[in-house]
């Protein structure tokens, strides 16, 4: 590399800082005369109850980072999650599964959902998710293993629930093993000269200079904050009615479920995520209507679980217009703060670190790279945000003031177009940075009751009787396949189980 960058200083905390350190060290610092990476680790904020809930695509990031996927899952108490089941988001309507799989089979190159819409119109009362192998497998607490037939029919895949504290440990260990320099300290002062960071003065009295700075300090944006104006941070509070994040732990579920349950209630929602050694609970709530303690009790009784290690923090969603300013590039939560809804934890870390590695500057002039970085990272953040916001905007909890209010909020521009297109014809307008596929949008729209009245006219080319037969065949095929799948409990035991003293009966 002909880079003029000789030294990178990464300032931050928790998982963001270690992911950045591991990625940069692995890519740029592993040969003689290469870049030197130094981590200044700020005091961690992760607690014993925190968990990360990631979407399926996040798993590929482990390849990029050179982490052994199975070992990560084992060490971070990980459990595979084939979907998320949303309960009570629409009043008395049944819960729906947002599984990571498509629906049915596209006949004559027309999306299956279009056929389902026609059938629905003529009285079909089978939910869309019943046509998804992934959703049914998740509901049956199975683990999807493909055979020759199912791999043509389904693309069911899974995200991960991880114990945040253990996971950070795994990543940090890998980074340190690769030779990342590391110190724990606080940044006392950021010395900025002509829009660039000149040096950092640390609490310990030392100062550090680098050619390039990475800000992985989360919401605090410790470095970037010294370079940006206040307007750089765009708040999304109008679309996210709940401003307090609560985490807690309950006992592990057995048999372990294949999905996470996300339940809405009067003052917010809570997700229950199975881990190997415990159940992680994350709630987003507001204290506007109900006192915090009362809300907490409400959650505890709804989960029927004894909750321990409860911690609560203020939580604000939003994004930086520019995450890369001068010689300082923010990664992870410092770029954008997203809720955990729809397994978007670590998504910003993944996106930003991948872009940073791709656009890593070859000289000390970063203009082009930073502009592209800023545009792309923001697009991803907004697109992910839109998917989350959709859940709120089309909720049907009309008698709860907080929920009712968010229904009236004007959607972000892009989402507004999506909603109106969907309502008119059941089609999803996809942009080029979508994390979720069409089927995910279908899950949420239809699951929350936005069922278009019209359907693709090409559907009518198939006689209704033929369609009914095809549907029935598909349903029994799926139910047979699901029945033959191993359970998630088994899969987990096979991966992680160990009987200490060979042959022990008890």
């Amino acid at each position: 590399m002909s880079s003029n960058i000789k030294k990178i200083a990464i300032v931050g905390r928790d998982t963001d800082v270690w992911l950045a350190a591991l990625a940069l060290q692995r890519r740029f610092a592993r040969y003689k005369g290469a870049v030197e990476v130094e981590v200044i680790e700020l005091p961690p904020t992760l607690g014993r109850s925190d968990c990360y809930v990631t979407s399926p695509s996040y798993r590929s990031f482990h390849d990029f980072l050179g982490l052994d996927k199975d070992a990560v899952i084992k060490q971070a108490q990980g459990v595979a999650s084939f979907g998320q089941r949303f309960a009570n988001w629409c009043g008395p309507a049944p819960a729906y599964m947002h599984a990571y799989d498509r629906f049915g089979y596209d006949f004559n190159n027309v999306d299956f959902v279009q056929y389902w819409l026609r059938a629905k119109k003529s009285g079909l009362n089978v939910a869309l998710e019943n046509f998804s192998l992934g959703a049914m497998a998740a509901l049956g607490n199975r683990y999807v293993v493909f055979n020759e037939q199912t791999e043509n029919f389904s693309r069911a895949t899974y995200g991960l629930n991880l114990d945040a504290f253990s996971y950070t440990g795994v990543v940090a260990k890998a980074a340190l093993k690769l030779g990342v320099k590391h110190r724990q300290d606080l940044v006392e002062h950021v010395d900025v000269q002509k829009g660039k960071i000149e040096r950092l003065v640390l609490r310990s009295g030392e100062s550090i200079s680098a050619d390039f700075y990475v800000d992985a300090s989360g919401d605090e944006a410790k470095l970037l904050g010294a370079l940006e104006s206040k307007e750089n941070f765009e708040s999304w509070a109008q679309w996210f009615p709940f401003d307090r994040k609560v985490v807690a732990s309950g006992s592990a579920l057995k048999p372990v479920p294949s999905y996470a349950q996300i339940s809405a209630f009067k003052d917010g929602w809570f997700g229950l995520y199975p881990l190997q050694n415990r159940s992680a609970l994350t709630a987003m709530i507001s204290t506007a209507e109900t006192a915090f303690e009362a809300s907490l009790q409400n959650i505890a009784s709804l989960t029927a679980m004894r909750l321990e290690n409860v911690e609560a923090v203020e939580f604000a969603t939003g994004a930086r217009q520019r995450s890369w300013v001068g010689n300082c590039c923010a990664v992870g939560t410092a770029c954008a703060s997203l809720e955990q809804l729809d397994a978007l934890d670590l998504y910003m870390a993944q996106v930003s670190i991948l872009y940073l590695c791709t656009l890593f500057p070859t000289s000390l002039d970063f203009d082009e790279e930073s502009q592209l970085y800023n545009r792309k990272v923001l697009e991803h953040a907004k697109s992910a945000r839109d998917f989350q916001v959709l859940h709120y905007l089309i909720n049907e909890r009309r008698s709860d003031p907080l929920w009712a209010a968010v229904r009236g909020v004007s959607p972000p521009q892009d989402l507004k177009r999506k909603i109106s297109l969907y309502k008119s014809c059941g089609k999803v307008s996809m942009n080029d940075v979508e994390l979720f596929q069409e089927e995910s949008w279908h899950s949420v729209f239809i699951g929350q009751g936005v069922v278009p009245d019209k359907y693709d006219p090409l559907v009518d080319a198939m006689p209704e009787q033929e369609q009914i037969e095809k549907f029935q065949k598909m349903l029994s095929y799926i139910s047979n396949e699901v029945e033959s799948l191993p359970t998630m409990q088994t899969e987990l035991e096979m991966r992680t189980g160990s009987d200490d003293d060979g042959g022990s009966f008890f």
Partner: protein
Amino acid sequence: MSNTEIKKVVIVGGGTAGWMTAAGLAKFLGTPNLSITLVESEQIGTVGVGEATIPLITMFNRVLELDEFEFVRETNATFKLGIEFQNWKKLGHSYFHPFGALGVDWDGIPFSHFWLRWKSLGGGLDSSRFNAETEAARELKFMNTDNESGPMVMPRINYAYHFDASLYAAYLRKYAEKRGVNRVEGKIVSVDKCSSHGTIEKLRLDNGQELEGDFFVDCSGFSGLLIEKELKAGYEDWSHWLPVDRAVAVPCENSGALLPYTRSTARDAGWQWRIPLQHRIGNGHVFSSKYISEDEATAQLLDNLDGKPLADPRVLKFTTGYRKKGWDKNCIALGLSSGFLEPLESTSIHLVQLAISKLLAYFPVSKNCEHESVRYNKEMREEYENIKDFLIAHYCVTEREDTPFWQYVKNMPIPESLETRLKLFRDRGEVLVKHQELFKNDSWFAVLTGQGLMPEGFHPVAAAISEDELRLRLTKVRSGIQKRAEMMPTHDEYIKQNCAAAKMKM
């Protein structure tokens, strides 16, 4: 049967063996053609304590066309999924020898080889997790799955019974008498033999009655009234391999749930059985009088009961070994008179049953039946020899050396046949059972690994599939077993719903 000289059969002794024989002969040879007389004395007690069996007993009951639930009710029986061995490998350890298959055999070789390979690749789940009976036993569950319809996606449950042997004898007595068996009360005082052939001709009883017969079945127990005292068939002593020579037995009150298995707990100079019946628990301490006194052994037994004793302890004396000629002239020995293998693997009743089926197969047509008896004796000898090796393995494969008894059995010379088998097992996980052997691969595997002998290799066929395929196969088996265990009711519930015995007066 007009061409036969054998018209009168006399059975001596009315314990379990006697009445099983009477029932079997009556059912298959019939009393119109064959007169069957059983002589027993109420003054002579039977040895029958709580009796544990192996699954082939269900076959015996089936061929007699007994109603299973009636049989269970009548004999206060419970169901048995296997035997738990406590403290056999070492103190504080416990393993299970289940009935039923370990996993699923593939590609012509036993599942154990595939498990061994998986283990060599880092798999952590114990082999017992791949056996349905063990999992059900762990959860105190039981269900008869013989009549399940549909494709066999889950393993069938193999089981036997624990029953009150004297009630079983009484039950079969009703059965036999209904079918024309003549019962005579009396004690034998002398025996008339043919002066030229030495065959038995007549029994004289204490009440003056005389019983003539063409063929005699000696079910007189350890004493071997006809086979030894009259015919001097000879006894082969195996006590250098199986040094236990006493048993002290005592029933006690039930406590807690009915265990669906027998428990065998190793003690300082022997072992203790625990056999759960519906109305009580049968207990016994089998020991070697060379290493512990009767008083001490009795005290140890009474100190280790799960409930209040219901009778005075009774001591039985025996010598482990085999009657050299179980069938001599016109007399066949069945049950304890034919040899004694300690009840460690519940083989006593099985050997009776086996002898009955062989007697039926070779039933003599003339008093001169040497060909039949030679063949019978050869086959039965093999059965005894094979079982003997299996029993010895429980003693010599162990980590225990904490008492003189265990020091002896761990280091004693063992039969060459067993020596070879243990070596093959250690090197490559092979048991190489002969076709007719009672205990097959899975039994040997469970006991040898349970006793602490883990094979170092496995069959090369198990290495021919990919690691992914291997893992998938094992996952499916484990999943099927979990599903099986999940759907089973508890043993208590199953008995309560189907076959609870009437409450008995103690």
